[in-house]
């Protein structure tokens, strides 16, 4: 488990991966929601990689993807997974550890 210092050191490098399967309404919604959240909270310090499993089915195995859409936070560590179309912003923020003060509580849990 990386320490909080590590995390802060890598604060600038948010690597996000969004797994979708084709251009479904849910996928499109997820991407739009993600974009919005990132712009609001991580402006300028994030990358989003979209992986379409219909074209790259082998990639599903690596990140243990079952649900679509799934957002994987590769960096900063630890890896976190958020499933769904990201329409519940509150929960996305919790999932990404972006809610100040809440992250510590979760980590302790």
């Amino acid at each position: 488990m990386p320490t909080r210092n590590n995390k802060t050191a890598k604060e600038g490098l948010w690597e996000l991966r969004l797994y979708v399967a084709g251009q479904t309404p849910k996928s499109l919604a997820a991407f739009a929601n993600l974009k919005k959240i990132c712009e609001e909270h991580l402006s300028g310090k994030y990358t989003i990689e979209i992986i379409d499993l219909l074209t790259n089915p082998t990639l599903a195995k690596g990140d243990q993807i079952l649900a679509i859409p799934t957002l994987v936070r590769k960096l900063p560590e630890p890896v976190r997974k958020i499933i769904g179309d990201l329409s519940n912003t509150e929960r996305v923020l919790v999932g990404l550890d972006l809610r100040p003060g809440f992250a510590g509580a979760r980590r302790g849990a």
Partner: protein
Amino acid sequence: MAKQPARPHPFHLQKCPTGINGLDELTQGGLPRGRPTLVTGSAGSGKTLLALQFLVNGATEYNEPGVFMAFEETGDDLTTNVASLGFDLDGLTKKKKLAIDYVYIERSEIEETGEYDLEGLFVRLGYAIDSIGAKRVVLDTIEVLFGGLPNEGVLRAELRRLFRWLKDKGVTALITGERGETSLTRYGLEEYVADCVILLDHRITDQTSTRRLRIVKYRGSSHGTNEYPFLIDEAGISVLPVTSLGLNYDVPEKRISTGIPRLDAMFGDKGFYKGSSILVSGTAGTGKTTVASHFADAACRKDKRCLYFAFEESPQQITRNMASVGIDLKPWLQKKNLLVRSARPTFYGLERHLLEMTRLIRTFNPEVVVMDPITNLITVGLAADVKSMLTRLVDHLKTREITAFFTSLSSPDGSAEQTDIVVSSLMDTWIVLKDIQAEGERNHGLTIVKSRGMAHSNQLREYRLTANGFHLEDVYLGPQGVLTGAARAALEAEEVAASLARTQEMERQKRQIERKRSVVDAQIAALRADYEAEEEELKKNITEMEARERAAALQRARISSLRKADKEGDCANKK
């Protein structure tokens, strides 16, 4: 158990053979092809193994590649766990006969943020299926998803879609599920997989474990409905269907010697039917093993193979003991005509015994099988279980035309034959050896209680175990029935004496006749002699008289010539 090809089915429901011993017989060909089958059971009941065996057999025997989607164990764990069964998962994976995908899901790592579906699972499964052209799919255990995903509603909808999708794909799927308290599976998977449901069970009765399998439902096909015991051993799963063989086998007309000539005579001089089942029951020390050894010995003498299961004695002990009654089994053991397999019945459960036996029968391929004694198996299971096991064994032996010889120990009290009733209906021939206690002695008697399909002696015969083996005595009937032991010996002596007296009397009378004849002969000779003497006298007189007559005539002629009388003719005229 021999593997049988899938039988054609009247409903034309295509079957997908599992290649698992016995299961294909129960399902009359295998699982429903192109449809999902649910295998449910409690923890450790062998679900994963059954599923994996289904895939491995498909890949190796039926050229049907398979996908194993593991939700519980990683691919490496799985490979290691089944390597001991001889399943080379790595090799099959390399040959593109098998694809293993480990699905890991951990609820605490997942945040749910809106609508989603399980397309990722579909993509992974679809990719795995397409990459090797899989015909078979195993999902083990998909119920893990219920613990991993928060939204059960979505999950249920997706499962329904998954099973429909699998059907559309045309793959034969096997889904495992954990047994629920009140339902077949904990999360009600049976709701989605309705074509075929197989229930596995693992029970401990009297400290002995028995695994059982039951086909709860099989849509569109008839199937065995009982609970069938099955085994997991180094070859994987073997199901032992109780009635799969049924009562439909060829019966040979050939006969096989009992090894005891006088006993053969009691069976119309020919012995048992080949391929029949024979029970010899008797109390302790009545020579059951000796009779069995005679039978084994006779088979070996005809260069047949005999398999001897001994539940009480070691092979060495049997050979030594039988040598004392003049049966030398050693050469047969050396020639490998005889194989003695000793095992304590309590060593393992009944089903395991049966499996070991059938396996040995398959490899050794004997014509004669001896089990001595079957009563010891009762210590392992209930009488009903023993009977069911023996039924299957007898059926198995009969289909192979193997003559089966069982011995059974009866209790020494009045119900001597009662204990055997359990199994006697399975037996074609039943010989009872019993103690006959009378006049301060204990002797042995043999009777044939039944022998299906042949004339047989109804006599109670006394026998002795001599240095030359089992010896049936001559029959002596006394006023109280058959005489045995000293009473028989006494009567035997009496009969010898009486017979001697009769012979002597006969001799005496013969001699008297001789004497009479010689007396008569002598008398006849005397009479004849008298007669001959008289005849001679008379004849002499006649001759004398004739001579005298001639002399007189001569005299007359001379006188007349002297008188110069007339010639003969004149003289007559002158008279």
